[in-house]
């Protein structure tokens, strides 16, 4: 089959590889009809996530048709159309039982590696480094899905791939980010990053009752899309977000701040140069410019929600502000399984049509170009969907 493989920094290729097979009783094989490139994939593309190996198949946002099931999977049958959470979860451990699916104890065969980095291992993820399981991803014609009896959700008739594909990651991710803000009536939520995650965080914050959302980025078309979603916007290259946020909130600061940028934040000023240099020579694994700003801007007693991915260590975190303003911080890879059904319902009821985000629809073969334009925000690219079985264009 054809699959998008990682071969090094800024080197992804469409390779011909063997088809996946059932390896465990609870596996299923899915024929991928749609798969997307995520901001998280860019951290791999840019070489910032350790333990990638040349030839690893990428992709964790995918959906398709069941073609084969292991003997332990009785709830799915051939031909079922499903969306698949990017987190791999067993459904029966302490964490899965408590709806903390991205913390599943049993899905990372390389848990020992993660334990070395983090003390404990989170769940395995599709196509996201050996540290997090080393599972082949879904930017491919076919993919093996472990614990297929608990993960994949059948898609009701009448909904297109594009309407439900983002249930696999970014819609739940934006939603969980907003939920982690414990929004109360009258709240103002600030969202750094108007990429796909930020866009869903903005819309979810309104769904959960925020009165105002202020969105921060520098890419015009992304800011425009945020505005279309009801947010007030700030271009951080034109105005210092800290000052502006204070002015816009009567001096109080936003009640909650969402960092939907993560470890590769673009920055201005000397401190960002410091991060760039330290990251380049591997003295600091992540560039926490946005996290710093969020902590500094947040109102006293407010919430900092971090869906943006960090991989390792960061410097110069304003811990003094964090403690003395009595802030709360919440984060995590998304507990996708928890949100699948409720968010599908919102799509069915027409409360949101997630396809608003898609700017590019391309065949799988074009993945190398797609990664590049998504990363460099060329051609107004906001979200790419790859179609492995699309007729050649």
């Amino acid at each position, binding site marked *: 089959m054809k699959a998008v493989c990682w071969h090094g920094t800024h080197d992804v290729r469409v390779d011909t*590889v063997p088809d*996946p097979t059932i390896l*465990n009783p609870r596996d299923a094989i899915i024929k991928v009809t749609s798969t997307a490139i995520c901001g998280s994939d860019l951290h791999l593309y840019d070489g910032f996530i350790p333990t990638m190996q040349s*030839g690893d198949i990428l992709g964790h946002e995918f959906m398709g048709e069941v073609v084969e099931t292991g003997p332990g999977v009785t709830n799915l049958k051939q031909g079922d159309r499903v969306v698949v959470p990017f987190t791999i979860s067993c459904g029966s451990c302490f964490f899965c039982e408590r709806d903390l699916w991205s913390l599943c104890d*049993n899905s990372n065969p390389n*848990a*020992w590696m993660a334990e070395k980095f983090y003390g404990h291992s989170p769940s395995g993820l599709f196509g996201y480094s050996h540290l997090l399981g080393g599972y082949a991803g879904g930017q491919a014609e076919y993919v093996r899905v472990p614990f297929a009896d608990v993960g994949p959700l059948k898609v009701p008739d009448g909904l297109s791939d594009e309407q439900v594909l983002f249930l696999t990651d970014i819609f739940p991710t934006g939603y969980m980010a907003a939920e982690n803000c414990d929004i109360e009536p009258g709240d103002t939520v600030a969202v750094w990053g108007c990429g796909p995650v930020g866009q869903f965080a903005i819309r979810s914050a309104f769904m959960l009752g925020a009165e105002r959302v202020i969105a921060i980025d520098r890419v015009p078309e992304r800011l425009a899309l945020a505005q279309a979603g009801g947010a007030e916007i700030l271009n951080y290259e034109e105005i210092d977000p800290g000052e502006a946020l204070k002015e816009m909130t009567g001096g109080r600061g936003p009640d909650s701040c969402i960092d939907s940028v993560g470890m590769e934040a673009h920055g201005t000023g000397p401190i960002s140069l410091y991060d760039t240099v330290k990251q380049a020579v591997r003295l600091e694994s992540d560039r926490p410019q946005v996290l710093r700003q969020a902590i500094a801007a947040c109102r006293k007693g407010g919430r900092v929600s971090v869906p943006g991915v960090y991989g390792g260590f960061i410097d110069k975190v304003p811990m003094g502000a964090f403690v003395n303003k009595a802030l709360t911080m919440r984060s995590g890879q998304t507990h996708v399984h928890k949100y699948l059904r409720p968010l599908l319902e919102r799509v069915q009821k027409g409360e949101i049509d997630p396809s608003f985000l898609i700017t590019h629809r391309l065949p799988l073969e074009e993945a190398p170009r797609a990664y590049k334009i998504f990363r460099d925000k060329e051609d107004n690219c906001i979200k790419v969907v790859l179609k492995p079985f699309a007729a050649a264009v």
Partner: protein
Amino acid sequence: MEDSVSKQPSKDTEASKLERWASIISGGALVLGGLQQRSLRGILMAAAGGSLAYQGVQKKSTLKQVGEAVGIEKTILVEKTVTINRPAAELYSFWRQFDNLPKFMRHVKSVQVHDAQHSHWVANAPLDQSIEWDAVIVDDQPDRLIAWTSTDDAEVNHSGFVRFQPATGDRGTEVKVVMEYELPGGAVAAAIAKLFGEEPEQQIGDDLSRFKQLMETGEIATTDGQPKGA
């Protein structure tokens, strides 16, 4: 205050070591915490208090003496604990059937059960070799503890126990494994040392993760055999 601290005995006496071992086996103490002991087997014998008739005399094998003489004698002692979201009784029953062990212990190729107490173990060694020994159960407390040790004539002195303790607040069962491989020296020692590599802790930890996966999910997470680009 400082005076009274400095008056504490600075080293564990043999008797207090034995007490700590007994306490960890009975479940009173929770962590071994680097307590070193020349022979887990001797401890198990003493702690078991003859609850099972095991007629063995501690003797030093000649191989071991050779090993000591040339300085490659090595003891691997590891302690690992994992919490498993299943009742102790179920975990105990699965483990008690020793022929189940190779399902999750990667270095153990097979365990043949002879009778209620005796079994024959075969472990993988590098270069398609294997190492074999007979083991006997020296303590068996249903749903709580199983302790075993190799017999006197075994080439490898292997001892271990697994303890099952309910975790607080309905959080499953804490499973603690303590295992020791006392290497006699020579080729066998080299083979085992290589087998465990630098990090026996990690290997036993991995075995325990696999045990947990098997008991909680019915299968062991893997990516062996999945596709990959050239």
